[in-house]
C-alpha cells in the first residue's frame, strides 16, 4: 500500500503531446525493406522462407496482443493457426480434386465426400471460415473461462490442453483430416500453379501486406482507450472490475482477435509452405511461438514480430548446420531470455519502461 502512496500515478499528459514520428518512420523503413529490398535481393527459395516466417509473425502479433498487452499467456495459438490452415487446405484439396475425392481420402478408403467438407468447395465460404472458426472457438473458450475469472496459469494450462487435444483429434480422424500427414500436395491456388515462382512471389507480397495491415490495426488498438483498458486488466484485473468495467469482456475480445490473426496466418501458411499437419500446430510449435515473442520482446508489438522472424531464421539455420545442437541452443536461449532479459531484444533499445 505504501508503494502507492509514495509513488503517485503518472499525471495525465498535458493537452497534447508532440507526436513521436520515430515509430511510424521505423515502420515505413521496415515496410520498404520488406516490400522492395527483400524481393529484389532474395532468391525465390529464401523469399519463400521469409514468407513462412512472416506468417509466424502474424501469429506472434496476436500472442503479443494477448500476452504482452493483456497478460493472457496463450499456449494454444497453434490450434487457431491450424483451424485457419485446415479451412484453406480443405478448399485447395477440393479444388485440386475437381469432381473426385481428395487423394488422401481415397487412400483411407473414404467413398463419399464428408458433409463437413462439402461447403469448402466455395472459396468465399472457405475464406470466411478461416476467420470465423478460430474466432468462434476462441470467443466461446474465452467467454466460458474468463467469465469465471479463471486466469493466469490456469488459462495457460487450459490452452495447452486444447492444443494437445486438437492434435490427437486431427491425427485420429484419418479419413476426415489426413491424419498425421495432414493436408498436402496442393497444385492450384486460385487458378495459379502454387509451386510457380510468380505465385510464390505474389504470396510473399500478400503475407507481408496482411502482416503490415494487421500490425497497424493492433497498434491502433493498443493506443486506443481499449488498449489502455487492456493494460489495466493485465496489471490489476480486480481494480478494473471495481472501476465498473468488465475485464472478462476485454479479455475475450482480445483473445478472439489474437485467434483470428492466428487463423489468417494459418490460411496463408498453407499455400506458402504447401502443407498443414498436426505436427505444425501442437503443444510444441505453440510454445515455440510464445518463446519467439518473449525473445523479441513481449511488451511491444514490434518485438513479437521481430522475435518470430529471428527465431524462424535461427531454427532454419541451426537445424541445417547443427541439427543436434538446436534443442540445446533453443533451451538455453529460453532460460537466458526469461531469466536475464524478460523484456526481450526490444528491451535493449527502449529507454523508457516498455511495460507501462
Amino acid at each position, binding site marked *: 500500500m505504501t508503494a502507492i502512496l509514495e509513488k503517485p500515478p503518472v499525471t495525465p499528459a498535458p493537452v497534447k503531446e508532440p507526436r513521436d514520428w520515430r515509430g511510424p518512420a521505423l515502420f515505413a523503413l521496415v515496410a520498404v525493406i520488406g516490400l522492395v529490398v527483400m524481393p529484389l535481393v532474395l532468391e525465390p527459395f529464401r523469399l519463400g522462407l521469409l514468407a513462412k516466417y512472416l506468417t509466424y509473425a502474424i501469429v506472434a502479433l496476436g500472442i503479443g496482443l494477448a500476452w504482452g498487452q493483456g497478460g493472457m499467456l496463450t499456449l494454444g495459438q497453434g490450434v487457431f493457426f491450424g483451424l485457419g490452415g485446415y479451412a484453406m487446405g480443405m478448399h485447395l484439396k477440393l479444388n485440386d480434386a475437381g469432381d473426385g475425392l481428395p487423394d488422401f481420402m481415397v487412400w483411407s478408403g473414404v467413398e463419399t465426400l464428408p458433409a463437413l467438407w462439402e461447403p469448402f468447395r466455395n472459396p468465399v465460404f472457405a475464406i470466411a471460415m478461416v476467420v470465423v472458426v478460430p474466432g468462434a472457438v476462441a470467443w466461446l473458450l474465452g467467454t*466460458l473461462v474468463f467469465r469465471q475469472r479463471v486466469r493466469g*496459469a490456469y488459462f495457460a494450462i487450459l490452452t495447452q490442453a486444447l492444443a494437445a487435444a486438437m492434435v*490427437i483429434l486431427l491425427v485420429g480422424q484419418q479419413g476426415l483430416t489426413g491424419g498425421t500427414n495432414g493436408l498436402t500436395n496442393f497444385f492450384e491456388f486460385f487458378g495459379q500453379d502454387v509451386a510457380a515462382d510468380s505465385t510464390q512471389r505474389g504470396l510473399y507480397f500478400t503475407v507481408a501486406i496482411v502482416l503490415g495491415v494487421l500490425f497497424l490495426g493492433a497498434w491502433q488498438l493498443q493506443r486506443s482507450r481499449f488498449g489502455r483498458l487492456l493494460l489495466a486488466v493485465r496489471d490489476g484485473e480486480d481494480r478494473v472490475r471495481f472501476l465498473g468495467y468488465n475485464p472478462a469482456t476485454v479479455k475475450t475480445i482480445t483473445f478472439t482477435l489474437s485467434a483470428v490473426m492466428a487463423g489468417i496466418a494459418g490460411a496463408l501458411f498453407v499455400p506458402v509452405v504447401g502443407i498443414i499437419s498436426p505436427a505444425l500446430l501442437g503443444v510444441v510449435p505453440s510454445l515455440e511461438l510464445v518463446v519467439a515473442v518473449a525473445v523479441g520482446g513481449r511488451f511491444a508489438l514490434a518485438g513479437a514480430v521481430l522475435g518470430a522472424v529471428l527465431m524462424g531464421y535461427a531454427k532454419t539455420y541451426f537445424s541445417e548446420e547443427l541439427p543436434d545442437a538446436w534443442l540445446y541452443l533453443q533451451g538455453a*536461449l529460453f532460460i537466458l531470455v*526469461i*531469466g536475464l532479459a*524478460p523484456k526481450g531484444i526490444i528491451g535493449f533499445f527502449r529507454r523508457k519502461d516498455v511495460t507501462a
Partner: protein
Amino acid sequence: MEGILNQLPIGLSIGAVLLLIALGLTFTFGQMGVINMAHGEFIMAGAYTAYLLQDFAGRNAVLVALPVAFLVAGLMGLILERAAIRHFYGRPLDTLLLTWGVSLVLQQVARDLFGAPNVQVTSPTWLQGTLGPMPYNRLFILLLAVGSVVAIWVYMNRSAQGRRMQAVMQNRQLAATSGINTGRVDQRTFFIGSGLAGIAGVALTLIGPVGPTLGTYYIVDAFLVVVAGGLGQLRGAVIAALALGLLNSYAEFWTNASLAKVIVFVVIIAFLQFRPQGLFVLRSRALT
C-alpha cells in the same frame, strides 16, 4: 459389460500415475507459484533409472528403482530449484517458459545418453498374473499411489516439517515472520514433489516403453488434474486424478481415442463453470 469392467483397471492405474505426477505439481504451484514444465522430465528420469538398474538388479529392478528414482528425480528437482526457479517465485508464467527450456534440454540429454528409440524395462515375474479383471502390474501401480498418498498425508499432518509446509502454503509472509525458514521448506517441497514424479516414472515402465519424450504425454493431463483439483490440495488431487483417469479411459472406450481428449477438455471447462478454482479452494481474502 466385460469391456466396461476391463476399462476399470486401465482408468484407475492411469489415474494413479497422474496422481503421483500431479502431487508434485500441485504443491510446487500452490506453495511457490511455480509451474514446472520440466516435471515431465523427472518422470522420464525415474523411468530411465529403472532401465539402468536392470543391469544390476535384473527382473526386480522395479523394486530397487523406486527409492533410487525418488532420490534421482528429487535431486534433479532440488538442483533446478536452487539454480533457477527460486529466482522466479510468484511468477508462474515465467517459470512455465523457463522450465520448458529446461525440459527441452533434458529431453535432448536423454536422447544423447540413451538414444532416440524407446527402451523396454522387463517387469518382475511376480507382477504378471491378474486378479479378476485387474492385472497385477496395474494393481501394483494403484497400491504405489495409495502408499504415496498416505505417506504424504502423514508427512503433511503429523510431522513438524509437513505442518511448516502447510503454513507456508497458506500464508508465506505470516509463516516467515513466525520464524519458519521458508526457503528451506520450499526446497523440501520441491525435492519431494520431484521425487514422486520419479516414482511415477518407474510405475510407467510397468505399462509401457520408455523414451525421451515419455514425460510430455502425461504432463498436460497432470496439469489438468491440478486445475480441477485445486491448488495444493491433496484431497482435490486424489479425486481429480482418479476421475480424469477413469473419464479418459471410458471416453476412449465409448467413442475413440481421438475424441477422448476433446471430451475430457470439454468436461474440464464445464466443471470450471461450477468450480472455477477447482474442487477444493484454500480460502483467502487476498486480491491479485
